[in-house]
């Protein structure tokens, strides 16, 4: 099993985490815990699985891309 993990913007800077790949996780929350070494989950953190918004308890599968980022501020 292989899951791609990405962080963006202030969250990426604050956690000081680069993109990487993990071997095994059942949910996006587990992906967070593994990659951040169980860092607190900020209230406003957004989760995306395969480019769609998801939740920490959303299931992940082999080949998924999971991303964590702060509230968006484009436009």
């Amino acid at each position, binding site marked *: 099993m292989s899951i791609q993990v*990405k962080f*963006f*913007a*202030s969250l990426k*800077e604050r956690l000081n985490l680069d993109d990487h790949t993990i071997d095994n996780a059942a949910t996006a929350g587990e992906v967070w815990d593994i990659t951040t070494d169980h860092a607190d989950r900020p209230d*406003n953190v957004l989760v*995306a699985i395969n*480019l769609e*918004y998801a939740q920490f308890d959303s299931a992940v599968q082999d080949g998924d*891309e999971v*991303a964590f*980022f*702060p*509230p*968006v*501020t*484009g*436009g």
Partner: protein
Amino acid sequence: MASYILEQPFNPWLAISDHQQSATFAQQFGATATFIGTMRDFNDNADVTAMTLEHYPAMTQHYLDKLIDEAKTQWDLLDVLIMHRVGEIKPTEPIMLIACWSAHRRASLDACSWLIEELKHRAPFWKKESRTDGERWVEKNTDGL
């Protein structure tokens, strides 16, 4: 229907004009509504000297296209163009444009207004301001008022 992520400054009026002239919807439109977001020149707040827009490239492109698709299901639109800058943006440079073409006025006006709000709340872009005292991530979007 088209969306573009741009790394360089662009002229929104020229972009809209060019798109309209090359469009396959030809001359069936009677209404065009556009919105342009521009980086303000903070004369009253000289702290901000530039802005950098980070994004999540694959998801950004996916979301702009998805928003266009959703607008098309809600309104009778002939065409939609979205352009959004990323990278370093200087004061007075355009940040993004939305243009909607329709036969009748309410579709283009309402879709344009809806698209800007949806884009602001859903498309994965993040602004970081460069200030005389360092850089700072913009925490959240304003309500536009």
